[in-house]
C-alpha cells in the first residue's frame, strides 16, 4: 500500500528531524555521580544572569529567602534550624561598630572565582553598586536601609547603614541580613556585562549571561526543555581547609523538568529523583503502601518543618469585614484539622501542636513570644458555637430569615479566592467557605488564573475589587530578619497604597500601635524587651484578626529516595550545626551535599 510507505517516510523524517534538533553532546550521566532533583525547576532554564529575576533558574541563580545558591555565594550562610549565620565567603563573624551603624567583615583568602581570580571586597562593593545603579530588586529593596558598601581594602568589607535623623541606623536588622541573603558577583565580569549591555538597564537584565563568572561549587552543564544539569567545579575554592575541606559529593546535580507534580512523583517513585522538593500528596503512602526507600525529614506527620504560614487575608474594605467580630467568627469557625488533613495531606503541624501566632513552628521563632500570655486568644478552629455566639453578641444576626446574617441590613456575602490550579490552597479555601455556611455567612469560592490574581492583589494602589473579600497569599518563611519581617508584612500599614505591593498587608489593615512596634523592633537588642514586643504584636494579631493562618507549610518539601544516595539530612541525624531540610541547594542546606553517601558504593 502506498500509504503505509508514506507513513514510514514520515516517521523517518520525524526521527531525522529529532537528530538535527538534538545538539551533539555527551552521553548518559553516571547514576552514582548524579543527584537528581524535582520540584525546583518548572519550565526550561532561561538564563544565567545573576542580576536578573527572570532566569527561571531556581537552583543556580534565583535567590530564595536563604539566599545562597549552588553557583553563587553569600558572605554568610543562614541556618533556619538554629537561626545562626556561618561564614562562607567571609572570614570569621562580622562585627557591628559600637554605634551600631556599620558592619565589617573580611573575605576569606582562599575564596576565588571560577576564573581563578580571588574574591575581593571590591567584588562585594561593586555588586551592591551595580544593584543600585540598575535598580534591580536587590538594589531597590535595600537602598532605603543601606547607605553604601565599600571595600576598606582588598579583603575588608564595610557595610554602612542608612541613618535616621537621630543618627541611629534605620533598620540594622535588614543591614545585617544583607550579608547572608545577597550573593557576590564578580566585579570584572559585571563590567564586561555592562559594556555589552551598553549600560542600559533593560538590556543588562535581559542578557542571558552564559559566560558568567561564579564562585560556587557547581555550574551549568546542559539545559533544554526537558532538563537542566549542573556539573561540579573541581577547582572549587571551598575544598580549602578554611571552608569545608572537601568537595561536595555528587559530580552532577540534575533536575528533570516535569509537567506537573504527578509526573514528578512518578519519577520519585521510580528512583529517577533523589531529592524531591515538590508537594507529594499522601507522601506516607510511598513507604507505607508502596514500600519504597523514601523518607522525609520527620518520620511521621507533619513530615517536615513548617517555615511559612499560608494565610487568608481579609479585605478590610468589604462590607462587614471591617468588623472584627465577623473576621474573628470566620477565623475560629474554620475546620483547620480538615485543611491540614486534606489540603496538606497532614504535611503540616496542627494548631493544637503549634498554637497560632505570628511565628513559624521552628523552635527559634517559637521562643520569641510568651505563649502563656496569649493562650486564651489562640484558637484551633471548628468553634462553630463560639463563632455564632460572637456574631450574635455583636448583633450580627439573620434578620430576614434567609439563613444568612446581615449587618446594617446588608447580608454578609463574600467571595473567597486563591489562584486557580494551586491545589492545596484551593482545597483550603473550600474549607473556609464551608465554615461560612455553618455560621450563617455566605462565602462562595472563586479561582482566577494566577496572572490575574497576582495582578489584582499586588497592584493595590486601588482598593481590591469585588471578589477579593477573603484571599490567600503566602507570608515570609525562615530567614535572618524573621519573625520581624513576616510580622511587618502581615501588619504594617506602610504597604497600603503602593503601586505594586509584593510585600504584604494586602487587606489594608492599619493599627498605629502595631506600626510603632514594627518600627521599633529592628533597633532593639534586649532579648526580654523583644519578647515582650513580639508577644504584644501576637496579641494584636489574634485580637484584630486582619488575616488568619490556614496551615504551616515547609519552606521546601524535602522527600528523598534512598535507592542510590543516602545520608540525607533528617531530624536527629546528628549533624552540628544541623542541616536543614532545604533540598541541599539553599543556605546552610548545601552542607547536606557533603554528607551524602552511596547506598551501594
Amino acid at each position: 500500500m502506498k500509504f503505509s510507505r508514506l507513513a514510514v517516510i514520515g516517521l523517518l523524517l520525524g526521527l531525522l528531524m529529532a537528530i538535527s534538533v538534538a545538539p551533539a553532546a555527551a552521553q548518559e550521566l553516571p547514576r552514582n555521580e548524579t543527584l537528581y532533583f524535582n520540584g525546583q525547576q518548572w519550565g526550561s532554564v532561561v538564563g544565567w544572569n545573576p542580576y536578573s529575576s527572570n532566569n527561571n533558574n531556581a537552583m543556580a541563580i534565583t535567590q530564595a529567602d536563604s539566599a545562597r545558591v549552588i553557583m553563587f555565594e553569600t558572605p554568610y550562610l543562614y541556618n533556619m534550624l538554629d537561626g545562626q549565620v556561618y561564614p562562607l565567603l567571609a572570614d570569621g563573624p562580622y562585627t557591628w561598630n559600637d554605634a551600631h551603624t556599620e558592619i565589617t567583615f573580611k573575605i576569606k583568602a582562599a575564596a576565588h572565582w571560577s576564573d581563578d581570580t580571588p574574591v575581593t571586597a571590591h567584588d562585594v562593593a561593586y555588586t551592591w553598586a551595580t544593584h543600585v545603579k540598575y535598580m534591580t530588586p536587590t538594589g531597590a529593596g535595600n537602598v532605603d536601609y543601606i547607605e553604601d558598601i565599600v571595600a576598606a581594602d582588598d579583603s575588608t568589607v564595610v557595610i554602612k547603614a542608612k541613618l535616621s535623623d537621630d543618627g541611629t541606623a534605620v533598620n540594622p536588622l535588614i543591614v545585617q541580613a544583607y550579608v547572608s541573603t545577597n550573593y557576590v558577583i564578580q566585579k570584572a565580569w559585571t563590567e564586561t556585562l555592562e559594556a555589552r549591555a551598553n549600560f542600559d538597564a533593560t538590556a543588562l537584565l535581559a542578557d542571558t549571561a552564559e559566560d558568567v563568572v561564579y564562585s560556587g561549587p557547581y555550574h551549568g552543564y546542559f539545559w533544554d526543555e526537558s532538563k537542566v544539569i549542573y556539573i561540579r567545579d573541581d577547582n572549587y575554592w571551598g575544598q580549602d581547609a578554611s571552608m569545608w575541606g572537601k568537595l561536595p559529593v555528587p559530580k552532577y546535580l540534575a533536575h528533570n523538568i516535569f509537567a506537573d507534580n504527578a509526573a514528578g512523583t512518578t519519577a520519585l517513585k521510580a528512583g529517577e529523583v533523589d531529592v524531591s522538593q515538590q508537594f507529594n500528596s499522601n507522601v506516607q503512602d510511598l513507604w507505607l503502601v508502596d514500600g519504597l526507600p523514601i523518607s522525609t525529614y520527620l518520620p511521621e506527620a507533619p513530615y517536615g518543618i513548617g517555615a511559612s504560614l499560608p494565610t487568608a487575608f481579609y479585605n478590610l474594605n468589604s462590607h462587614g469585614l471591617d468588623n472584627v467580630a465577623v473576621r474573628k467568627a470566620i477565623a475560629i469557625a474554620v475546620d483547620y484539622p480538615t485543611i491540614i488533613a486534606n489540603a496538606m495531606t497532614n504535611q503540616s503541624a496542627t494548631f493544637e501542636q503549634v498554637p497560632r501566632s505570628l511565628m513559624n513552628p521552628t523552635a527559634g521563632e517559637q521562643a520569641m513570644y510568651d505563649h502563656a500570655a496569649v493562650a486564651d486568644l489562640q484558637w484551633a478552629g471548628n468553634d462553630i458555637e463560639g463563632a455564632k455566639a460572637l456574631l450574635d453578641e455583636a448583633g450580627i444576626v439573620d434578620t430576614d430569615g434567609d439563613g444568612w446574617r446581615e449587618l446594617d441590613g446588608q447580608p454578609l456575602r463574600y467571595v473567597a479566592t486563591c489562584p486557580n490550579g494551586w491545589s492545596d490552597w484551593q482545597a483550603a479555601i473550600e474549607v473556609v467557605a464551608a465554615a461560612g455556611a455553618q455560621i450563617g455567612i455566605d462565602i462562595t469560592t472563586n479561582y482566577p488564573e494566577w496572572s490575574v490574581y497576582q495582578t489584582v492583589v499586588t497592584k493595590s494602589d486601588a482598593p481590591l475589587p469585588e471578589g477579593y473579600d477573603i484571599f490567600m497569599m503566602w507570608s515570609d518563611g525562615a530567614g535572618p530578619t524573621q519573625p520581624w519581617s513576616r510580622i511587618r508584612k502581615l501588619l504594617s500599614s506602610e504597604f497600603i497604597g503602593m503601586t505594586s505591593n509584593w510585600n504584604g498587608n494586602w487587606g489594608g489593615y492599619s493599627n498605629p500601635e502595631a506600626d510603632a512596634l514594627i518600627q521599633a523592633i529592628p533597633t532593639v537588642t534586649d532579648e526580654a524587651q523583644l519578647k515582650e514586643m513580639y508577644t504584644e504584636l501576637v496579641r494584636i494579631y489574634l485580637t484584630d484578626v486582619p488575616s488568619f493562618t490556614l496551615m504551616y507549610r515547609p519552606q521546601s518539601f524535602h522527600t528523598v529516595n534512598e535507592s542510590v544516595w543516602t545520608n540525607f539530612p533528617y531530624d536527629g541525624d546528628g549533624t552540628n550545626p544541623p542541616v536543614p531540610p532545604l533540598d541541599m541547594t539553599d543556605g546552610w542546606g548545601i552542607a547536606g551535599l557533603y554528607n551524602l553517601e552511596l547506598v551501594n558504593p
Partner: protein
Amino acid sequence: MRYMLGQIFSSVRFRIGFSIFAFILLTVLIYPLIITEPPLKTISRGTFLSPGIYVNVYDSIGFSPQYTLLLDGAAERRIAAKLNADDRASMKEWLVKAGLPEESIDTQDTAALLEVWHANFDPTIRLPGMTNADRNYYIRLNTALDGLLATEGATIAVPDATTGALKEQAVVDQTSYVNIYEVPNSRVFPLGTDNFGRDVLTELVAATGVSLIIGFVAGTVATVIGLLLGLISGFLGGFVDDAIIFVTNLFTVIPSFIILILITFSIGQDKRGAITIAVVIGLTSWVWTTRAVRAQVISLRNRDHVNLSRLSGHSTAYILMADIFPYIASYVVMAFILQVSSGILAEAGLSILGLGPRTTEVPTLGLMMNWGMIYQAHILGKWWAYFPVILVIALITFSLNLMQTGLDRVFNPTLRE
C-alpha cells in the same frame, strides 16, 4: 411517529446505546433522592479513603451488642497481619547486622523473636548500609509490636471530670465481635473519597448530571447555529453562502479546541460558569452541523417537491421549515447527539488543562478528573478517584454514539447490510 420509533428501536445498536444512556440518566435523577447529601460536602478528614464500609469505632466498642465468637486462629491472624514474613526477615537482618549470631534467631517462633528483638533493638543505633528509610521502618515496626502477644482484653477508660484520673469503663475481649450492620453509625463509600475528602460516588453522580447539561447546552447551541447557518447558506446560495462557507472553512482549519482554549482563557476562570463553558463549546463546534446541513439543503433545494411547494405559493421561510427541515431533521438529530457527546468531551479536555468551569457549587466530570490528577490519584493507585470518571465519560459518549449509529442505519438505508 410510532412507526418511526419502531424502526429506530429495531436497531440493536440504538437499543444498547439507549439503555446505557437511560441508565446513566436515571441514576443521575434518582440517586440524589436517596443520598441527599450535597455532593461537594467534605466528608472525610484525610484524603483518598479507599472504597469500603466504614464503621464507627467508638460505637462498635461501646454501644453495640457484642458477641463472643470462639474462632480458631483469630490471634494468629492478627499476629500474621501485624508481623508478616517480610517483617520477620527484616528483624532478623537487623539483629544479625547488630552482631547477633544468625542461628540464634528463629523467625518462626514469634515469642522468642520478640524477646530477642526487645532485648536488642535500639532506634538510635545506625547500622552500616542502613538508610533513613530503613531506620524509620524499624521504628514503625517496633511500635507495631507493642502488645502483639497479649491475651487479655483492651481496657477502655474515661478520665474523671474533676481529677483527670482514668476510670475503667469497659474491657474489650479478644474474642469480642460486632456485626457491622448493627453498628448504628456506618457509612458505605462504594467509590471511596477523593482528594477533598468528598464521597466520590455522590460527587460523580452530580458531576455526571452537570456534564450532561453542559453537553446538552453545548449541543443545542452548536446545532441551532449549525442548522440556521446551514439552512441559510444552502438555500440562499450566492454571497451569503460564500461568506458562511468562508467562516466555516476557517473554523474547520483552526482546531476548535485551540479556539476553545483561547476563549475560555480570555473569559477568565472567575467568570466561567458551567453554562458559560457550555455555550462557548457550542459556539466553537457548529462547523460540522453547518457543513452537513448545507450539503443536504443544496441537494434538496432543487428537488421537485420544493419546486412544487414554491409553485403552491409558499414563502421561503415556510419552505425551509416545511419542505427542507423535515428532510434533514434526522441528520440534525444525529448531529445533535454527536455534538452533545463532543461537548462533554470538550469540557473534560478543558478541565484537564485547568480551563474548566468554575463550579464550586457543582462538580463536572472534567473537574473531578483534573483534581484527581492534580492530587496524583493515578500515580498513587487511587483508581477510584479517576477511573470511574473516565468510564462514565466513555459510557456517555459511547451510548450517544451507539444511538447515533443506530439512527444512521435507520435513516441511511445504504448502510444496511
